Structure formats: C-alpha cells, structure tokens
C-alpha cells in the first residue's frame, strides 16, 4: 500500500533481493525524512514538555542535592556529599524515613489482604454484588483531606464515636491522633480505609481473567472444597494482579502526605513525621533547598528500588 507511511522505513531497511533503482531509493529516502518530520512534529510538544517539567527538574534536584543552596540565597556552593553525610546523622530524617517504612509495612499487607478478601467474597455470590462493590469503592472517590477531618472527629478522644463505643466495654481509648504510640497506626488505618476499595477493584478485574474451565478441571481433579480450588486455581491465577497491587499500594504509601499535613503536622514530636512531610518542612519552611533535595533523591531511590524488585519478581514468575 503506497500510502502506508508506517511500513516504508521498515521496507527500506530490509535489503531487497532485487536492487532498487536509484529513483526508487531516493523516493524512499524522501519518504523516510517525511515520516521523521511528521513523527517528530506530532511528538515534539510532548517531548519538550517532558524535558522541561519532568526530566530537567529531576536532574536539577540531583544537582541541588550536592549544593548548599537555600531558597532566595545569592550564592551557591558545591558541597559534594555533605548533605548526605548530614542526612546520615539527622535523627529527624531517620525518624521520618523509618516512619514511612513502618507506615508502608502496616498499610500494604492490610489493604492488599482486605482488598483481596472483599473481591473474593463479593464475587462468590451474586447477592448484593453491585451494592457492596459501590460501597467499598466509595472512599476512593472521596476527598482525602476532607474525610481525614471526619476521621479526626470520629477518633476524637472524648467526643469520638470510637472511644464512645469503647467506653461501655470498660476501655478508655487513647487520643488516637495525639498519642505517639497510636498516631501512625491511626493514619495507616485511614489509608487502608481508602485503599481497600481500589485494591478490591483491581482484584475483581484479575478474578475475571481466571478462566472458568480451570475451576471445572480442579473439581474433576478432586478439589471439592472452596479452599482447595482457591489454592489450586485462584491464587496462581491472581499472582500477576497481586504483584501489581502490592507495587501500586507501596508507591502510594510512600507518598503519604495529605493526612499528615491536615491532621498531625508530623507530631507529636515527629511520631508521625514522614518523608514527604519532612521534605516539605526542610525545603519550604526552613528553606534548606539543597538539603531537602538530598532527601528527594532518597525518596526517588525508594521508588526505583520497589519498581526494580517488582520487575525482577514478575520476570522470575514469567520464567517459572
């Protein structure tokens, strides 16, 4: 098809058994240049924007991380690894770093397990399927800072529904969002409340992709109990979905910021300080731009590590 620009450069690349006439070769070269011009023309605006607002700023953050730049300062000095050395000895940074990891360790297993459980239960019987799916997904559509404010009210030490319900049981509930031992757990709970419905939807999609013949085959093979069929068919069938849900939930957990900024400002005494909140404070409150940029690189490294682990895991699964 002569008008199929897309196929032409490929044709030109494969060496023809019959040598092409010079005129034909020239025509092909013109076509290839034309294709390159349209291709670049169409993707250039996007390409330039990627450079300007994603790639160059990322490189700039890496450059800032080895300087002592302070927002508004007139002079900048190259300080090599000094910011990272300071990070190493910064107890507030370590607190924020470990808090982020602890938070992630609390949220990921819980919201993935609950999302999977909800998906399996909802899928197992048509009764109330749509209603439950809607209700479980509802928190995903809610404005998190607003709903965090409502949770703050529910978790209020005296007026809150939770502590009022605990009182008749003889339990004096703590001040969930101001007690150093409970604050991170309370924030993790709010995250799980919102993330479970999201994970449930991904698992529901994954369940639909498991071929139903496999269940019949498992029955023939003597898997009479639901748990046997789950182990033999559902769980292996959901492996790719699970891996992906774990990745997404981990990356979202690393980004925890809204609930901290709205409810605790990192307190009490840094008990709920997390990486992004600490970056915000160092970079935009104390104006220590270079130092905050070093923390940004740590944050980026965490993302890369998780993505690489996920890629390795899915490759290993592909080989198995």
């Amino acid at each position: 098809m002569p008008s199929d620009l897309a196929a032409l450069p490929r044709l030109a690349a494969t060496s023809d058994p019959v040598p092409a006439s010079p005129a034909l070769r020239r025509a092909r070269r013109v076509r290839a240049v034309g294709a390159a011009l349209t291709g670049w023309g169409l993707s250039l605006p996007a390409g330039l924007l990627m450079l300007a607002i994603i790639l160059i700023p990322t490189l700039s953050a890496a450059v800032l991380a080895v300087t002592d730049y302070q927002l508004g300062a007139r002079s900048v000095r190259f300080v090599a690894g000094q910011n990272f050395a300071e990070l190493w000895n910064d107890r507030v940074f370590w607190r924020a770093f470990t808090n982020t990891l602890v938070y992630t360790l609390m949220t990921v297993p819980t919201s993935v397990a609950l999302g999977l459980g909800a998906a399996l239960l909802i899928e197992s019987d048509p009764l109330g399927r749509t209603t439950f799916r809607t209700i479980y997904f509802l928190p995903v559509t809610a404005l998190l800072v607003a709903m965090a404010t409502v949770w703050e009210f529910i978790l209020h030490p005296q007026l809150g529904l939770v502590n009022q319900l605990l009182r008749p049981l003889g339990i004096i509930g703590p001040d969930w969002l101001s007690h150093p031992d409970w604050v991170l757990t309370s924030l993790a709970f709010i995250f799980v409340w919102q993330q479970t419905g999201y994970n449930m939807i991904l698992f529901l999609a994954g369940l639909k992709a498991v071929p139903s013949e496999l269940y019949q085959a498992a029955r023939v093979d003597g898997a009479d109990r639901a748990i046997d069929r789950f182990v033999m068919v559902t769980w292996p069938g959901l492996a790719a979905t699970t891996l992906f849900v774990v990745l997404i939930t981990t990356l979202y957990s690393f980004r925890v910021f809204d609930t901290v900024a709205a409810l605790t400002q990192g307190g009490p005494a840094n008990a709920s300080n997390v990486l992004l909140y600490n970056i915000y404070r160092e970079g935009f409150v104390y104006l220590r731009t270079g130092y905050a940029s070093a923390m940004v690189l740590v944050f980026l490294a965490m993302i890369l590590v998780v993505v690489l682990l996920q890629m390795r895991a899915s490759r290993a699964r592909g080989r198995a």
Partner: protein
Amino acid sequence: MTRGWSAGRIARLAVLTAGAAVMLMPFLWGFIASLKPAAEIWSGRITFWPEQMHAVENYTEAFRRAPLGRFLLNGVIVCAGILLFQLLFAIPCAYALSKTRFRGRTLIFGAVLVCLLIPIHVTAIPLYIGFARVGLLNTYAALIAPFTISVFGIFLFRQFFSAIPDDLIAAARVDGFSEWAIVWRVVVPASWPAITAFAIFSVTNHWNDLFWPFIVIQSTDLAPPALGVIYFRRDETGVDFGPMMAATMIVTAPLVVAFLFAQRRFIDGITLSGVKG
C-alpha cells in the same frame, strides 16, 4: 439458581455488611454531625439522628467562614485546564508512537517510561524555584503548568491507539488527510472510551491533590478544594465540629455524587493506573 440460606451465604453477608459499615461510617457520621447543634455533638451521648435540626445554621456558617464555592470553582478551573493541555499534548504524541515509524521513536518512548517513575514530589523543588524566578507563584498557571504533560496519558493512549485498524488510517491518508487531521478527526472520535476514562482519572487525581497546591498557593482565592479544607481547618477558632463537617460534606460531594451517577466509568477511570500491569 437459588441455593437457600446456607451458613456460608449468611456469613458472607455478615462479613461484607460489617466491612460496608466501616466504609460508610465517615460519610454517615460526618453528614449527621453536620446537621447537629454544638450542644448535641459535645453531649457525649451516641445519638443517630439530631434531636434538634441545625443543618441550615451549620451550612450557612461553613459558607460564611470560608469561600467554599470559590474552592470548588478553583477545582473546576484547575482540573479543566490540566485536562485540556494533557489531551492536547498526549494524544498527538501517542498517535506518533503507535501509528507512525520514525527515527527517534524509541527515544521518545523511553523518555515516557522514565517519566512514569517520577512523581511531582521529585520535581517540586526545582519547579518551585522556576516559578519563583518568573514570578508565577500563587497563580493558576503554577497550579496547571506542571501537569500539562501526562506521560501516563501518552502510555495509555498509545496502547489504545494500537488497536485502531491501520486500514482506517491508511484510508484517511488516501483521502488526503494530513497527519494532524487524522489525529483529531479520525483517531479521537474512535477513542472516546479511553478519553473519558483518562479524563476521570486526571480530574479525580488533581481534584484531590494537596501536595503541589500546598506549596505554590498562598491565597484563599486560588485554593483548590483539598487546600481549601486545610485553610478551613486553620481558620478554626475553637473546635466547632458542626460547620466543619458541613464544609467537608460540601467539598466531598461533587466527586462522590458524580461517582454514584456514572459508576462504571468512574471505576474504569480511577483504576486506570491498574491497567499498566
């Protein structure tokens, strides 16, 4: 097939209902509190429906205390602006990546994959410095500009466009359409499902975003809903839960109501990031 009320079915319903109660609790409890007078909220008793209806007072107080309508309007302006630019830049690029062959295509696609890994939190500091240099802090432009390119949009549209038959595009070329005309008059009309899903994905993300507005916006007049809630909380003189719950209900309502009306599309849109795998 009716299987009757076996123990398993009842247990399933009981567990799912308990979960549903937790999911719905903040919506219900916040809504009920927004109807109650302060005295009832502070009474220390668990009451469901307010004994004395205080809805009008709480909601007018919420609107008096903060420009909630303005927050919502800002949300609409910012989300619409972002979406418009994202579609304008991502669609032609995705078309070029999926339907044309040219030198440098792999380079651009590689850049897209790298950019997918970089969230706004990484670029925030240099972008802030840039906006400060050109004097654009605390403007709509600062809220919109960093999101005008959606690499995720490029990625998604590229996948969707690959499924459009090559013959359709070849026919348009024979008819003398330029490549730009093909993008807007052939590819876009064939891609509404993907565009709608992406639009919902983009709007919910930016409607809910707090991090970036928190950094670049200093004035109440420009605050999108999430930042508006923060301002409302700061403004609080003494804890007054009634109006505060009323305010949270107002800013939460638009997306929740939209979701209830177009559930399938919302689920597809919001979970878009889940189709990458």
